[in-house]
């Protein structure tokens, strides 16, 4: 499935959708759309070789958790196409970016618009923190740090099976504080998993605020390179830079692209909230109204009716 839109337009569409949702629902993981829109647009629209969605365009209701007796159980991976040998596979690590992921699925035509109306509703599979059964997800990543290890396991298995497709992880920089990430890097380098690559949304944000204040983890490019992976740092809003980075040779090594981003890119008004941007909830009707007018203008749309 190749989208006819440009990745740049898809990124704009993602920001608009997430913003609209935020205004209407009085809050959202909004800054994550600002930082990651280009990356997710590019991943789905260009970077990955994905088959057509095999999931229903309108998401099914919650069908129960996996259990021996639950025969209806399915993950949300079907929205990314079949998990067959020739295709790439996406592991979406920061599960709190779910709203951005759903907006992306709509923009690239893998989910219908009404999917978003089910967001965070009781009995819905379109959950606020992406679950295994949520559209576009294949595993629970709400506990940060497990995505890269899982993808490494998948990549190892696919290597043994001589599969053509690569395994991609979309990550965020906050989770680099978890020790497991570095365990996963060690193993991915040791087993020369060049069929594994990741793009990290380096927005330097975490729940408590700016990473530099909460727990500064220093020069991550140098660290990742020292661990033996191929690490490239780019401007995370420059889609051309992503295209170039993906072309870099990384023989016998996993590739980690550090996409340096701004948590208020495209929504400058959010800067007034810095450094508390993890979840944007309006402090007053006045703020909501002001944000609606200012950000709508920047996104080139009429103010959202709510």
């Amino acid at each position, binding site marked *: 499935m190749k989208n006819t839109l440009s990745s740049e337009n898809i990124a704009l569409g993602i920001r608009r959708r997430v913003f609209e949702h935020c205004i209407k629902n009085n809050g959202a993981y909004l800054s994550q759309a600002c930082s990651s829109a280009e990356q997710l647009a590019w991943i789905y629209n260009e970077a990955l070789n994905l088959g057509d969605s095999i999931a229903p365009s309108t998401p099914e209701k919650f069908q129960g958790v*996996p259990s021996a007796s639950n025969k209806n159980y399915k993950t949300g991976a079907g929205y990314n196409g079949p998990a067959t040998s020739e295709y790439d596979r996406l592991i979406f690590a920061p599960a709190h970016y779910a709203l951005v992921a759903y907006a992306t699925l709509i923009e690239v035509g893998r989910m219908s618009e009404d999917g978003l109306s089910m967001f965070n509703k009781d009995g819905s599979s379109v959950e606020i923190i992406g679950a295994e059964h949520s559209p576009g997800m294949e595993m629970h990543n709400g506990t940060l740090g*497990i995505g890269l*290890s899982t993808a490494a396991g998948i990549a190892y298995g696919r290597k043994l099976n001589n*599969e053509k497709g690569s395994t991609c992880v979309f990550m965020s920089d906050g989770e680099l504080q978890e020790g497991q990430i570095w365990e996963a890097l060690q193993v991915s380098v040791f087993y020369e998993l060049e069929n594994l690559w990741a793009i990290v949304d380096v927005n330097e944000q975490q729940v408590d605020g700016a990473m530099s204040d909460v727990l500064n983890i220093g020069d991550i490019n140098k660290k990742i390179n020292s661990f033996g992976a191929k690490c490239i740092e780019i401007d995370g809003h420059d889609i051309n830079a992503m295209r170039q980075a993906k072309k870099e040779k990384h023989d016998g090594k996993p590739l980690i692209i550090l996409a340096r981003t701004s948590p208020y890119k495209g929504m400058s008004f959010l800067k007034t909230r810095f450094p508390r941007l993890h979840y944007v909830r309006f402090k007053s009707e006045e703020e909501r109204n002001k944000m609606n007018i200012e950000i709508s203008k920047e996104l080139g749309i009429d103010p959202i009716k709510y």
Partner: protein
Amino acid sequence: MTEIVNKPYGTSFKKYASKHKNILCLSGDLTSSCEVDTFRDEYPEQFVSMGMAEQNMMSFAGGLAMSGFTPFIHTFGVFAYRRPYDQLLASIAYPRRRVRIMGFLPGITTPAGMTHQAIEDISVMRTIPNMTVIETGDATEVESICQQADSIDGPVYCRILRGSVPRLFNSPLKIGEIRNLNSGSDILLITSGICTEEALRARASLISEGISILHLHVHTFKPFNEEKILDLISNIKYGVITMENHLINGGLGTTISEIISKYGLSKKLIKLGLQDTFAHGGSKQYLTKYYGFDAYALINAIEKFIEQKLNIEDKDLEKARIENVHSLFKAEAL
């Protein structure tokens, strides 16, 4: 004379895994400690060294299962759940990955003390949805564990005995069954793991004292075959004694107490095992005696139930040798 089998796990894993190429042998830097070093040397293409990085090992195994392989994780039981508990749940248990976790050195079967002694693993594992939980009690059970664990469509945790392991049973372990080792009507004795062998040391002395013991051996903690033992609990004269190489909270004793309360059976229960305490390092003989779940502790528990002193001394138990035990009934009968 009891047959002692050398490294039954190492031998049987190699036999089973070498015939099933979708199996990958994962090791957390404990390859010879878990008896899979020979397998590593002979089948390197099926071996994945994971180093000392258990959190990654659990999620990585989940990923391998997602690409069609069946990982058998080899580590000490304690390292399979304490540090990587979050990963165990999110990457293996929730999604029901076909991962087989082989936990060595159960309970106090290691002199290495608290950090190495898995004394609450059964308690933890059996409360996790989707998990199957097995404990081996002799060489025959260890020999049948790979095939049995691999027959489950979902994750399995197994307590494995290593090194020189006595052969007590002549029929293989079958998940969900309970072994009946002795019929009797006074006391219902339910044992698991190494405690079964320990309890058998007291058998001859108890018979000569005229005590009638109904002795069951449990290897499957989840799913637990509760219906099969309801009548046995109901019909016993004095009460039930459980004996486990584990904390008395959360394991075998608790499982039985749950059944007693669930079905409103009015029977007393004495739980032998670690009594809400951590242990320290030492030999199996020393530790089971020190913490009160050796054969002599069993005699004391029986004396409590029948309210009289038995004429059994420590030295009688020292002399006791373990004879081959053949299940009274076919295992399926229980």
